[in-house]
């Protein structure tokens, strides 16, 4: 591998890692802060991708279109979805055992998959890359790097920075962190924890949906697309340390790098390398790299 190729592969690894972070960040919010094992997280990612596909014609009819208008309306819908789901289902799960959480969220996967099949069908769909970002940046002789992938990376970085800011620098972040450590104490200080959690959950769902919508033009839209992502997300969250957004960030980059270079250098083992990495890190640090609290 010459230097130029190596650098391009590093870019691939970085870009993949950032996208993984975007999906996993929502999971780490819900899993780490609210203590709920949410298997349906992959479904939210899938819903996002299908929203990008299905909303585009509707939005273009109503507001004259545009990728970003679709993105915004999808985000609004997902916040609403998250809020309602928390109210209807997840709020009953906080004091239950993990097994019951797994059962219910697994049930939700089946429901979402079936709804998707009924509403949109089982075909594979493509989502067009927005005109503005459809070009490529030339790299070396033969290849060019799609502008849209760079855009994804920028969005992911912005969200990572935004989350970091909210968590460490704002009152809301402080309340969320406090709530995850001791729910009753925060409640007795006069903070409406129920509402707070509802918002956090909605934000977690919105992050997954956003990831799905942004990834749709490069990943295409197909049945069962959430399942593969879900497993990788859990790997990222576990490696990073449950509940740590910072940990999820570095873990996602690590997984992206291992996956990318694994495919190139050790193609026979590419399928298992990520899991080997997880096993090694858990041996070294059973709590994950950045376990908080």
């Amino acid at each position, binding site marked *: *591998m*010459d230097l130029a*190729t190596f650098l*391009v*592969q590093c870019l*691939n*690894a970085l*870009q*993949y890692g950032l996208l993984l972070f975007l999906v996993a960040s929502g999971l780490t919010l819900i899993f780490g802060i609210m203590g709920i094992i949410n298997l349906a997280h992959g479904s939210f990612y899938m819903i996002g991708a299908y929203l990008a596909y299905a909303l585009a014609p509707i939005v273009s009819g109503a507001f004259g279109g545009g990728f970003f208008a679709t993105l915004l309306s999808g985000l609004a819908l997902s916040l609403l979805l998250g809020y309602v789901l928390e109210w209807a289902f997840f709020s009953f799960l906080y004091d239950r055992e993990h097994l019951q959480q797994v059962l219910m969220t697994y049930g939700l996967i089946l429901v979402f998959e079936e709804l998707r*099949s009924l509403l949109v*069908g*089982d*075909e*594979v*769909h*493509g989502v*067009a*890359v927005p005109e503005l970002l459809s070009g*490529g940046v*030339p790299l*070396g*002789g*033969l*290849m*060019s*790097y*799609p502008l*849209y*992938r760079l855009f994804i990376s920028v969005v992911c970085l912005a969200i990572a920075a935004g989350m970091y800011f909210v968590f460490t620098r704002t009152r809301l972040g402080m309340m969320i962190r406090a709530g995850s450590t001791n729910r009753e104490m925060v409640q007795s200080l006069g903070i409406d924890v129920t509402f707070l959690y509802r918002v956090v959950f909605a934000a977690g769902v919105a992050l997954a949906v956003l990831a799905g919508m942004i990834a749709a033009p*490069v*990943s*295409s*839209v*197909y*049945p*069962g*697309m959430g399942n*593969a992502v879900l497993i990788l997300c859990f790997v990222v969250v576990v490696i990073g340390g449950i509940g740590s957004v910072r940990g999820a960030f570095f873990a996602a980059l690590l997984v992206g790098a291992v*996956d*990318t*270079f694994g*495919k*190139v250098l050790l*193609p026979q083992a*590419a*399928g298992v390398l990520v899991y080997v990495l997880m096993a090694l890190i858990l041996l070294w640090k059973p709590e994950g790299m950045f376990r908080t609290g």
Partner: protein
Amino acid sequence: MNKIRFALVAGAVLCAALAAAQTPGKIKVGLMLPASGTYASLGNAIENGFKLYVAEQGGKLGGREIEFAQVDDESDPAKAIDNVNKLLKRDNVDVLVGTVHSGVAMAMAKVAKETGTPLIVPNAGADAITGSMCAPNIFRSSFSMWQPAYAMGEVMAAKGYKNVVTITWKYAAGDESVRGFKEAFEKAGGKVVKELNLPFPNVEFQALLTEIAATKPDAVYTFFAGAGAVKFVKDYSAAGLKKSIPLYGSGFLTDGTLEAQGADAEGLLTTLHYADGLNTARDNAFRQAYAKAYKTQPDVYAMQGYDAAQMLAAGLNAVKGDLTKKAEFEAAIEKTKVDSPRGPFTLSRSHNPVQDIYLRQVTGKENKVIGIASKALADPGRGCSL
């Protein structure tokens, strides 16, 4: 009062028994196809095609009425044996038809081989079904993985390419496709300089696309299907490789996926045993009848289902619907010339179609035929001792 009632009931039972004895029994066809999951639409097309031909014959083949028993195989090899047994033991089917997924079809072939029940495979392309697992009662109306791949090897060698990179998923279908391609391409003097693989069904191609760019081959041969095919074609184009390194593939790369691939697929060349724009009287008639019956255009899967029914008809007609004449039934299918929408085909000694493989080019939303890549191509049926 009781006596009268008894007499009435007894009379009714007797009549029913007589009626049943007089009508020749129906032939029960067991359709084992995916009705849920990723392959659901493929299973549906096969079923439609099969039933279209039966309906065209007035619901009867070989003078006997056809009835169906159906099982959703879920494309799950782990449940395959159970599902076949449901059809055989619970529904007592006379003939098995299925399926899309190769792993499931292999399990069906295994059971069919043991029980001797006739099996017609309407899609699954695993070479082994008409190779090492072949049997007198197992037939295929579709293709073997080897066929379109081998034909593409010939085409690309004839175009003068010397160094080619292959890329596919690391699983049976991908391996078989690349092997078939390599066999023809290297026989004609070309060289496969690198075989790239990624685990099935991983669709993160960017790292391997970079490898392709670094290797700078004359062209790329690929096997992907479904969602993977959509994403690969789009990524290949987005990486700017489409204009510098031509991409070729087995036909499934662009079948049923063109709507999603959009402009990124335009101009791609693929090989398959069916194509759009064949414009033969037979194909036009089939497409019209199918569109009329189901309000949608047929695809390669519908065509394969239709031909599976034609093959069954050939066998049943020869024995006048009497499936106990097993050897005659099997010999009749083996010798038949199927008047398929794809063009007439015969069966090889291992019961795989000997057929023309078309070279097709993506134009708009169609895989337009631009020529015949390999005429009357027969799968070698390696490992078959028939």
